[in-house]
């Protein structure tokens, strides 16, 4: 087991595409580290560079204490699970699992023992004699995971391993992966573009955008204090309301007059944008204490909550998350007020968090 250190990684494909602009990651030993970002932001490329399947244009990669830049994948002692599971189609499950071990030249008895252990961990007993095309997607996924862990590698790399599963199975597998990683204590780098997956799995999350790291933090930090406007707009469903504000009479005020508690140490010399979570706002009866007048544009019932879209006289409508017991009709005049603590505030020009 080992941590992974990525410094100033840059990858330019021969056709000129810059897939990774600049990435620094410091992944701890035994950590479940998630890389999250929109499609094409360079997640897979970064992962493949760590695996040695892609040679970086510049930058260093260390696994444990070893600088692995010039090591072929086989010598990096890591296992990877692909989105498309890449089980060898002509081999039965048993042989798929045994393959990496035979490649290492382990004695037969040990190979069998390890295969049995991995099969037990992933509950593959009845599937051992089937070939991949006779396994369901979920089963193939479990075999792929088992194949990654038979080798007891120093780290697991996972590239969107659950994308091809349906929602229910995906939630199950998520729990399973998290449990497994905790049990084995092996470092895992997990790539996804699904923020729910990232939030529920990761010890820490790196948010990537256009080949750069926008933020690294625990799920809570990433949710509470997105480091940039990009992160603020990416995390959460619906994401933060980004509201242009100015400081006046000790309050942050939007053009519509909506008042927010300002965070301390706010710089005064620039235009500011506050990031307000939908649950930090409240729709009230019109004229309620501290509210600004608004109008319900639409309401989405999500089962256990309602998302109201409210026009409060600002350029952009805001989204407000409300419990089911409070109901307003569409087009109804309402009040809107802020109930949470000080929101994160961003510089409108640099798009960075300033307070």
């Amino acid at each position, binding site marked *: 087991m080992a941590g992974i250190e990525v410094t100033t990684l840059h990858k330019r494909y021969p056709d000129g595409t810059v897939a990774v602009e600049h990435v620094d990651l410091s992944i701890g030993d035994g950590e479940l580290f998630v890389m999250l970002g929109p499609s094409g932001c360079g997640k897979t490329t970064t992962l493949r560079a760590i695996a040695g399947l892609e040679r970086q244009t510049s930058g260093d990669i260390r696994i444990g204490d070893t600088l692995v830049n010039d090591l072929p994948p086989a010598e990096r002692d890591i296992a990877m699970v692909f989105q498309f599971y890449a089980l060898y189609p002509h081999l039965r499950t048993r042989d798929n699992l045994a393959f990496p071990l035979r490649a290492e030249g382990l004695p037969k008895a040990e190979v069998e023992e390890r295969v049995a252990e991995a099969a037990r961990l992933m509950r593959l007993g009845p599937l051992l004699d089937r070939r991949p*095309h006779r396994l369901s997607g979920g089963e193939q996924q479990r075999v792929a995971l088992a194949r990654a862990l038979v080798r007891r590698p120093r780290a697991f790399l996972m590239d969107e391993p659950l994308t091809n599963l349906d929602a229910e199975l995906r939630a199950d597998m998520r729990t399973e992966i998290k449990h497994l990683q905790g049990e084995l204590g092996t470092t895992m780098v997990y790539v996804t573009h699904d923020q729910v997956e990232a939030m529920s799995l990761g010890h820490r999350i790196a948010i990537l955008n256009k080949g750069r790291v926008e933020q690294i933090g625990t799920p809570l930090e990433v949710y509470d204090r997105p480091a940039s406007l990009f992160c603020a707009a990416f995390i959460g469903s619906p994401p933060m309301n980004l509201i242009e504000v100015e400081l006046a009479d000790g309050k942050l005020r939007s053009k519509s007059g909506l008042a927010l508690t300002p965070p301390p140490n706010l710089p005064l010399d620039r235009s500011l944008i506050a990031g307000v979570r939908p649950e930090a706002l409240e729709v009230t009866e019109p004229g309620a204490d501290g509210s600004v007048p608004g109008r319900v544009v639409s309401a989405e019932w999500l089962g256990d909550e309602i998302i109201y879209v409210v026009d409060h006289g600002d350029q952009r409508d805001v989204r407000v998350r409300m419990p089911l017991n409070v109901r307003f009709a569409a087009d109804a005049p309402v009040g809107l007020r802020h109930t949470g603590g000080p929101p994160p505030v961003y510089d409108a020009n640099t798009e960075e968090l300033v307070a």
Partner: protein
Amino acid sequence: MAVSVDEAVSPGPVRDRRPPRRRSGGRGRVVIEVAVLAVLAAVMLFPVLWMIETSIKENRDVYAIPAKFFDFTVTLDHFKDVFVDSGGGPTTLSGSFLNSVIVAGVSTVLATVLGVPAAWAYSRFSVKAKKDQLFFILSTRFMPPVVVVIPIFLMYRQVGLFDTKLGLILIYTAFNVPFTIWMMKGFVDEVPAEYEDAAMLDGYTRLQAFWKFTLPLLLPGIAATAVFALIFSWNEFVFAIFLTSSDAVRTAPPAIAGLIGGTTVDWGLVAAASIVFALPVLVFSYLVRKHLVAGVTLGAVRR
């Protein structure tokens, strides 16, 4: 999903997918269809049938007027004449068949051995100006052999390849390599690169990964491609007649053609030789028919 190439490119059930209602659109129509197809088949197959008949007729029946369709004595003498001469030794024609087997076989093996790894490389690696290179490779097949045969004849004479089997093998290989590369690239593209990635992480080198994982999945494609190459080399006539002069080197197509044109033509022998010549191609095509269809429809069939 994990499917082998075999499954991935198989044309699937080639059943008529028209709804039954339209298919049964009138008995009369079916009758007409069958009649038209039967006439067409007769016209297309007649030369073949006639060739078969001629090969088993005695010479006087071959020249009989009116032609004899059914009431002739069957003889296999012509087939014997193809291989055994009057003195009991092998004929020059049988030597030509052996030459054809050697030339077609060796050139196909060479084209496959060279073309498959090249196709793999073009499919997997980013090569500078890949598209241009591939186009250039294809462009070598734009010209029919007859256009280049004179310069090649002159060159071969200079370097001593004229009238050698090696010369024919080289030129057929050169013609088949581009074809093999193009055809095999399609098959390699169908095999996900992740297999090799996974194998490399499992401790294999890139070449081992190709050899152990990709290659087995490519076998059906290789078989189809090789048969196409084999058929080309086996049937090739223009190079064969221009680049050879002696009976010891001559392959079957010019040798058979050489049977025609004397003062008398032994049509029975010509027919028998042609059948012997056509059989291997038919047998091979039959053996790999499934993959031939897959090869021909490649690109049209998606997962």
